[in-house]
């Protein structure tokens, strides 16, 4: 009884207001429409297609033939490059990402010190990021050249012995070479810019308060900068890991996955199956496994992030 009474006494929403609401919603969807269409055409549609393809044999020329789970069983049991490529891709990401995050943060802090000529330093730091990947690969192939490259020249000069790594020629060293090359490109790139922006967003009052409390340089960094930057670190970390796991161009151009498959990254594996052997079904299955692994990995990162990421504007 009482509930009915209150419901009856509630003033109905005036008509113009609901109209305005509807109008706003329609306009909102209209502005959103390019992206909605884009998600359907270029993301959801292709995802469904590749999901279906992963259960087929498809070589483009002949129509796709449904084979059930055959691709997946083949990947897990017969594909001798599957596990190694997945493992080395992760190993690569787990080394490159933390090191380049630390490097980029250090670079950002350095460039945030109002040094004279910061504009120039910033450009110098960013240079590797602007170098075309093919040129960078050739450049590093020369730098790491086992016989005439400058790195080995220095190593021999300093150590005085003829034992120097074979780098891109040696299965044990090729990955290290690619990691160094990736770091060179990643430290001064977009990651550093986003850190710089993050640093400039830390309120000065917090530093002033810390100084009043007698904090030194390290204490300020540890207790003000680092906590305030955790969201930026998290953002860079998630994107950095996804970027590192997808590494393709650098490996493709610099080492072609060799020697002895020591740099056979997962994306290279997918590419070869899809665009060299034209096994579109098999490659789609590979891609979906990758997507699944990446999804779980990212999900775990988000779960973990609640423990260490601090959002200043967050209301509990």
């Amino acid at each position, binding site marked *: 009884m009482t509930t009915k009474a209150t419901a009856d006494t509630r003033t109905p929403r005036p008509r113009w207001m609901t109209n305005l609401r509807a109008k706003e*919603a329609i306009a909102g969807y209209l502005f959103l429409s*390019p992206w909605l269409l884009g998600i359907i055409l*270029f993301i959801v549609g292709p995802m469904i297609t*590749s999901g279906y*393809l992963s259960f087929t044999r498809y070589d483009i020329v002949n129509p796709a033939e449904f084979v059930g789970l055959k691709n997946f069983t083949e990947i897990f049991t017969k594909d001798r490059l599957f596990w190694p490529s997945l493992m080395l891709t992760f190993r690569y990401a787990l080394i490159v990402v933390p090191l380049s995050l630390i490097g980029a943060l250090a670079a950002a802090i350095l460039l945030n010190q109002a040094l004279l000529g910061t504009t120039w330093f910033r450009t110098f730091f*960013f240079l590797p990021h*602007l170098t075309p990947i093919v040129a960078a690969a050739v450049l590093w192939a020369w730098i790491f050249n086992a016989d005439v490259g400058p790195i080995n020249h220095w190593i021999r000069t300093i150590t005085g012995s003829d034992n120097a790594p074979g780098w891109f020629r040696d299965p044990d060293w090729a990955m290290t070479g690619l990691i160094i090359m990736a770091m060179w490109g990643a430290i001064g790139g977009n990651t550093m810019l986003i850190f710089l922006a993050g640093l400039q967003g830390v309120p000065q009052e917090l530093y002033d308060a810390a100084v009043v409390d007698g904090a030194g340089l390290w204490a300020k960094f540890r207790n003000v900068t680092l906590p305030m930057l955790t969201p930026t670190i998290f953002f860079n970390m998630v994107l950095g890991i996804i970027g590192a796991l997808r590494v393709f161009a650098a490996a493709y*151009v610099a080492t072609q996955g060799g020697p002895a498959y020591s740099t056979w990254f997962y994306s290279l594996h997918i590419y070869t199956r899809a665009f060299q052997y034209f096994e579109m079904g098999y490659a789609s299955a590979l891609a979906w496994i990758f997507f699944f692994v*990446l999804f779980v990995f990212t999900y775990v990162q988000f779960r973990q992030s609640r423990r260490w990421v601090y959002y200043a504007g967050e209301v509990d």
Partner: protein
Amino acid sequence: MTGETIAPRSKQAGGGFMLADLYQSASFQRALGRGLLYLIAVSSSAVFMFPFVWTVLSSLKRGGELFRFPPTWFPEIPQFHNYADVFEIVPWATWTWNSTFVAVVSTFGAVLTAALVGYSFARFRYPARDVLFMITLSTMMLPVEVTLIPLYLMFAKIGWLDSYRPLIVPSFFGGSAFLIFLMRQFFMSIPIDLDEAARIDGAGYVRIFWQILMPLSIPVTATAAVLTFMAQWNEFLQPFIFLNTKSKYTLAIGIRYFQAVSGFADDSEPKYHLLMAASVMMTAPIIALFFLAQQYLVQGIVMSGIKG
């Protein structure tokens, strides 16, 4: 600066005791700290620049000089004609035009539509908006490999392979989740009172977008444009997969010609000195762009308040 003014005084007094005082003085320590920072900045600049400097120097060498041992820095006789040779051996001018065309058009499309979509997420209330925004953000995590194969098949079916449409058209559908996020965050920081005042004056949604929000968003728009342009200019995977005809290449893949990859170049002799010259020509415009835009870049990201 401070170090200089203090130094003569200690000399005047002479003696180790005063010198110890000097080392402990706050201004001296600050000067020392600054000096150390400059030292780090200069030396790490050198590390980052070294490959580029070597590229420029090598672009002026003769082919055989590059792999000389021990490595030499300077070309014996600067070969400026290397740059002209690049234009003669490959259709470099055409490739430059192709890259410019693809990068400019797709940047335009991406930034424009990302702004529209960001406006929608920032300023309108409608059902499922927040869910759609979460979906948008999660697309950032989707590996290209999952969509690349079906997209290739789709573009093959509609006859778009070996044209610029696969590189350009998708940009007109909101650009990327990152750009949408950047624009939305920025629009959220503009007081909504401005929109409301304009609406009272009779402005519609489109007018509010063009005449109120966009003029206030120049820094973030510039950031979005510069980042997209640089990424498009250097994009390797997509043109590599979608383009086949040599005259249609963009610079990022055309430059492989000088590497003399089998099945790619007519001549199996790698031409690394020309590759270096080509690399310099390809990088110079975006270095200039970055140098001019960098202040905007950092500010644009700060103002949009990217916090993850």
